[in-house]
Structure formats: C-alpha cells, structure tokens
C-alpha cells in the first residue's frame, strides 16, 4: 500500500516535470532564445490549419513569419482580413536558429500600434 503511493507520487511528479518542459518547448525547438523583432510589409499569406504563415518584406529581405492556427489568431484578436498584402506589421518572437533561414515564429504581432498576443504565456 505504501509502495504503491510512493510509485504514484513519483510518477505524478515526473510527468508534471516533463509536462512543463514539453509545454515550454513544444513547437519552438527550432528557434533561438530571446525576443527577435522584425518589421516589414506583408507580401503574401497562407493562413489556416495546420500552420499559418505570412511572407514579409523587411527592408528588401524576404522573411517567413509563422503565426497561429485559426483558433489562436482569433483568440489574439487577429482576423484573416487584418493579415493581408500591403499591411505593415511588426512581429516579435523566436528567430530560426539557422542563420541562413529568414524565418521566425511570432509570439506577438503589432499592427498600427496594437499588439496581438499569440502566446500570452511566453514573454
């Protein structure tokens, strides 16, 4: 009886610990640490499941900015008609750890001074 509760307790602790680590890194493993900021103009979009992306021209450089799935974008207050060609956008989040790849995953985007938080649990 005592052994079983020790086993259950340790299992719960272990999964909780692993769970938190997984939560912190899921989907971000390919990005660098720290907050990378990019400002540019949207040139094209491919929104919707499974992954939404924006093609952004930042001072002549072509970048890919990953945004959320429909539910995540909407939760942040972003609708598809706000993310269209010609819109100036500032994206802040994780840059790809591969320096040869102009790609980032947005934690938040700001359009016209308004900030839209895609991942409020991330700073």
């Amino acid at each position: 009886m005592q052994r079983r509760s020790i086993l259950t307790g340790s299992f719960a602790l272990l999964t909780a610990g692993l769970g938190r680590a997984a939560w912190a890194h899921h989907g971000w493993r390919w990005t660098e640490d720290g907050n990378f900021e990019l400002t540019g103009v949207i040139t094209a979009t491919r929104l919707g499941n499974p992954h939404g992306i924006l093609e952004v021209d930042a001072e002549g450089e072509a970048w890919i900015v990953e945004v959320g799935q429909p539910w995540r974008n909407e939760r942040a207050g972003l609708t598809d008609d706000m993310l269209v060609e010609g819109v100036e956008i500032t994206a802040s989040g994780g840059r790809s750890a591969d320096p040869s790849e102009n790609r980032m995953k947005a934690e938040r985007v700001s359009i016209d001074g308004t900030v839209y938080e895609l991942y409020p649990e991330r700073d």
Partner: protein
Amino acid sequence: MLTAFAAALQDTDLATALRQSFWVYPLVNAGHIVGLALLFGAIVPLDLRLLGVWRQVPLAAMSRILLPVAIAGLLLAVPTGALLFSVRATEYAAMPLFGVKFALIACAIANALLLRLSLAWTVHEHSELAGTTPRLQLAGALSIGLWLAVITAGRMIGYL
C-alpha cells in the same frame, strides 16, 4: 496536371472549411492517428505470426481477428488522410516525401493482396496448421517494414 488537381482540391468548400476550422481539423488529425494505430497495432502481431512467432497458434485463428481490425484502421486512415491532404494539397503534392509515402502505401497494400492470393496463405487459412513458410515470412517482414516506413514518412511530413 497533379498541381491543377491539388489546387482544385484545396479550393473546395470542404478543404476550406477544414483549413479555417478551430477544432475539426485536429479531430480529423486524431482520427488519422487512431486509424493508423489500429492498422499497425493489428498488423504487427499478425506479421510476427507470419514470421514464425507463436507458431503453434494457427494462422487462421489470428487473422480472423487481426485482419478485420487492420482493415478497419486502414478504412479510417485513408479518408482522414485525404481530408488532411486536401487542406494544403498543393504544398503537400510538391513534397517528394509525399510521393514516397504514397508509393510505400501502394507497396504495402500490394504485398497484402499478393499474400492473400498466395498458395501458402490459402493452405494456412483453411487448416489448423502450425509453423510458417518462407513465403509467409517474406510477406510478414515486408509488411512490418513497409507500414513502419509509411508511419515515419507521415510523421516527417508534419515535421520537415
């Protein structure tokens, strides 16, 4: 030609609805996983039997249970997979890995059908024979290898 078909598929109301959905897309995705889990989970013990594991158990006894489950899994995996594909058809059609996955599925199904038509299978299915034969072993090994490769290719598509 394939790109034209993919573009048309992607533009259908159904594909568009899935692409814009909140919860239906991940549910379809989960359904695809359940399908492949049933397929692989059922086919592996059957393939192991073909290879000679549990050789005292008649093949017929195992296939009677495992084959319907495997087929049910395939029947769930295929339409859910088609739905998932349709959401970003042009992007997936352009990935070599997708062609590889399709080719592997075709080979795995061909392997199963050829086995079904083989003498070795017919003999074992209609008897209480124990043991196995080289023909059955070949099919079992190919089956495990091919379905494992299909699953791996599928996972890579969402990852790369």
